[in-house]
């Protein structure tokens, strides 16, 4: 098959948000692009579906906070339907029996700790300053440590300069805390246990980390680098759920000329003369393209779709060692009404609830993942999106969805089939003690363990970020050292998923960056 006969310049495997962003970017650059999605709708792990008749959720995603504003602007997502039902959620830390502490409410916080109430805004400002210093690198390729190439030296220098421009005091503090753990940071800063645990939960959510795991400050900064409507660190609920954002991205891609085919699972990547030449679908259809861009996680992309026979031994070793076992489960509850305990919420319920068992309890909850057991009372981040967006459920009814931190991918003894129901009941009971009355209102429920997430969304390992965000797996080391600029060893094969720099969450950054790499390469490469 010669390149001249290929129908497409680029074939994208997987319509997760990064695949969609890449498709939109490429199509806008006039590159003939096809996106192939296995499921019958795009969105990847943020795909919208009804988990119970009439009750809609967006897969694993419940909050939008990281999507790069540059991408929102460049792809004119507003024109393609992006709306916010809530753009600055309050954070309420549950104290049991319907009580809560509103962390954004200075007066409320001052009642439990005057010092913390004083310090919290300053702490947030500082963290946002540090996050701002790191943020510009999110939409740029990570440098390789190959100094013979000036571009790498220049990129490193830019990065250094950015940190330097923080000023001496902030730079020192950033260099100190970046390798620290969240436990130490919040213990140094605050005295109220609920506040400490809540910040720590945000820091560790989605990762194989306890609050005492070093590097968990980095993950917190990563989170703080997000913004909504120019508001750093703000949490939003898009109208129609995060799934609607996926639709907006798809619309942006389509309107720019990209072709999106759903229900088209890719079986493997075609390779000829050590070059990716297209993909073949499960049904045997071959689609030729000059470049193949995979939105799937690194292990699936490299070891299953491409195959080790095209790769070198050390590279395969590294890929296999990429840590991507998920730690976070997803719970969806369909409620036929709200219990009384949820009637008088601040900001009309534009809030998320954090359920933490205290700072030490949070660390202890991590044991479930470390030793692969069914967790007892795992921490949760809960939202009821129907409070701000009633369209997600039949009239008067509600959806509750929760991220459940520290649910292991596999159990040391037994399997999830035997334990899923037990965990689900435990979680419901746990929510019910915090928000009394919920239990009686449940008409449908869905629990997705990381293994379920893997199967349902074709997300290897079921990991939020397609792989741990830790210092040894980010930036110039993600996913495989030496292959961090989206280009994989086999010519014409690229990755664009969260397993590449800068990582996961709905940032769109890997997709954007990968598209830039493809555009640059297509420009320099002569058409055959």
């Amino acid at each position, binding site marked *: 098959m010669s390149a001249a006969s290929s129908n497409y310049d680029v074939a994208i495997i997987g319509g997760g948000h990064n695949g969609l962003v890449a498709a939109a970017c490429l199509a806008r650059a006039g590159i003939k692009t096809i996106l192939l999605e296995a499921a019958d709708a795009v969105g990847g792990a943020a795909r919208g579906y009804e988990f119970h008749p009439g009750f809609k959720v967006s897969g694993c995603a419940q909050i939008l906070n990281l999507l790069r504003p540059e991408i929102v602007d460049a792809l004119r997502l507003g024109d393609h339907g992006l709306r916010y039902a809530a753009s600055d959620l309050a954070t309420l830390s549950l104290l049991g029996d319907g009580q809560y502490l509103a962390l954004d409410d200075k007066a409320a916080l001052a009642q439990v700790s005057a010092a913390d109430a004083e310090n919290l805004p300053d702490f947030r400002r500082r963290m946002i300053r540090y996050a701002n210093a790191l943020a510009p690198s999110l939409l740029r390729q990570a440098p390789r*440590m190959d100094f013979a190439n000036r571009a790498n030296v220049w990129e490193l220098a830019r990065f250094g300069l950015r940190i330097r421009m923080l000023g001496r005091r902030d730079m020192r503090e950033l260099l100190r805390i970046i*390798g620290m753990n969240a436990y130490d940071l919040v213990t140094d800063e605050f005295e109220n246990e609920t506040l400490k645990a809540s910040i720590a939960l945000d820091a560790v959510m989605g990762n194989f980390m306890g609050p005492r795991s070093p590097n968990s400050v980095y993950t917190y900064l990563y989170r703080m680098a997000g913004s909504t409507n120019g508001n750093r660190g703000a949490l939003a609920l898009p109208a129609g759920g995060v799934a609607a954002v996926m639709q907006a991205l798809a619309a942006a891609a389509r309107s720019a000329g990209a072709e999106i085919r759903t229900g088209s699972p890719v079986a493997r990547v075609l390779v000829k003369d050590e070059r990716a030449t297209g993909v073949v679908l499960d049904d045997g259809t071959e689609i030729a393209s000059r470049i193949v861009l995979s939105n799937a996680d690194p292990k699936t992309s490299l070891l299953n779709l491409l195959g080790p026979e095209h790769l070198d031994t050390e590279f395969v070793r590294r890929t296999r060692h990429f840590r991507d076992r998920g730690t976070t489960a997803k719970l969806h509850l369909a409620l036929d009404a709200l219990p009384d305990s949820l009637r008088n919420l601040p900001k009309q319920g534009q809030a998320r609830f954090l359920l933490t068992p205290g700072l030490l309890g949070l*660390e202890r909850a991590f044991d479930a993942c470390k030793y692969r057991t069914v967790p007892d009372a795992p921490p949760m981040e809960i939202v009821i999106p129907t409070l701000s967006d009633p369209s997600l459920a039949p009239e008067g009814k509600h959806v509750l969805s929760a991220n459940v931190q520290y649910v292991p991918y596999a159990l040391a003894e037994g399997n999830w089939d035997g334990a899923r129901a037990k965990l689900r009941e435990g979680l419901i009971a746990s929510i019910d003690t915090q928000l009394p009355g919920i239990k009686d209102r449940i008409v449908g429920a869905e629990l997705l363990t990381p293994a379920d997430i893997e199967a349902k969304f074709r997300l290897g390992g079921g990991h939020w970020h397609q792989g741990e965000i830790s210092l*040894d797996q980010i930036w*110039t*080391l993600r996913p495989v050292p030496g292959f961090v600029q989206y280009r994989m060893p086999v010519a014409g094969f690229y990755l664009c998923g969260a397993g590449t720099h800068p990582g996961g969450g709905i940032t769109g950054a890997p997709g954007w960056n990968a598209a830039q790499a493809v555009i640059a390469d297509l420009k320099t490469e002569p058409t055959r």
Partner: protein
Amino acid sequence: MKRYDAIVVGAGHNGLVAAAYMARAGLEVLVLERRYLIGGAAVSEELYPGFTYSTCSYVCSLLRPEIMRGLDLPRHGLQVIPYEGSLNVLTDGDFLASYSNHDRMRRELMRHSRRDAEAYDRYALEILRQCKFIRPMLLQMPPDPTSLRPKDLVDLVKFAKPFSELGEKRLYETMRFWTMSIGDFLDEYFETDVIKGHLAGSSIIGTALGPYSPGTAYVLLHHYMGEVDGSIGAWGYARGGMGSISKALAASAQETGRCEIRCDADVTDIIVKNGRVKGVALADGSEFYADTVVSNLDFRRTITKLKWTEALDDELVRKGENFKIRGSSGKLNIALDGLPNFKGVAVKNNPALSGDIHYSPSLNYLERAYDDWKYGHWSKKPYLDIVIPSLMDPTMAPEGKHFMSVFVQYVPPSLHDGLWTPAKRDAFGETVIGLIEEMAPGFRNLILHKQVRSPWEIENEVGLTEGNIFQGELTLDQLLFNRPVPGLAQYRGPKKGFYMCGSSMHPGGGVMGAPGYNAAREVLKDLRRGAPA
């Protein structure tokens, strides 16, 4: 009253190293030690008739050879006896021995896993590379990356140069190594629990981190970067116990005729006038004067426990309070009537017995041991690092009898139900003895005398805050230019004329002497006395 050129607060090994180098450069030096004997945590004491106890620190390797030669320590009585192996005993009668001979070691590993035996060579090569890379940094002052002064920029470039010369591939390996957990690192090489458990021990000793905490691979390096007689990574006993090192250092310092050492001299105040140190005051009210004061105390103690006659600024005091210096280790020192019989282990001509004897069956075992610490309990199943120096050094115990040192990880500085009490301390001791009894049945009956030390005892006796043996955690936020805190990493303290030479400073803990050497060099530089001899 006599004026000195420099006063050293605390006669730990780093204080003595600093004193010796300053005295050799011509300064009149006074060393003030709170306890009745010098050495800090490197001491030998006869706590039971006929037995020499290395009460705290128990083995050496890290002592920089430059210092060994520079201060002529062998002539002053220091002899290091290298050991030839180590052992990880399992309670089921099997074990993993390690031998200094490569082939013997490999066959032992092959007994557990052929793949691992081979992986070990790759692993050892990588560790060797990392050691060789880091070694030149030990006796270097960390640069200040925030400074724009030409001198600091030159320092920064000098510091960065070896990194840029590593080459792309090795630079990645190094970045990974410095940020990874030892658990993840070992999982990439090995498949056998007992091998991983054995190798991980060095990366958790003395630190409040578990084997799966990122940053622990570096801690492993910290234990491997030493050498004995040029043999990299080798460990040995100081003949006559660890106090011999302190004695040799003191003798080397005093040989100059310019170094005075006073024990039972508890420094409580730092006398500062107009932002400049002038001397120190003791608990008994006496005062000593010098324009240079060097603190061997840990950073937290230096900042928060000493009284400064001109107050330090609040932010610095807060940093001192937030300095991560966590007790995580305990110690049992035991006089034995005979050699214990470890299950399945040959006693005669077994080099594996001459070194560390671990109880460390797996990474998860260590992680669980760490879990207990986090929640304010000593590990119910702890990691043990046992040595019996009397096997190699007959001066440690009467013939046929033995001195055993048992290092225990993890033991918290205070417990979930309050502070340490003698009863809790004994219960902790019992946990350890019970475990050793499982490893070596009949052990309990050999005990003639024992001393049990929790972090509380270590803090109160030796003065290490929280009983942390490294004077501060060896995590990324407290390494290099971050050690002890950013901005104070260059051995100079918060007031003019004040210096810090303890392990709280770069490159950190262990009986290495490098912080003492580096601090002395900076003092001499500031006094324009040239480089240390």
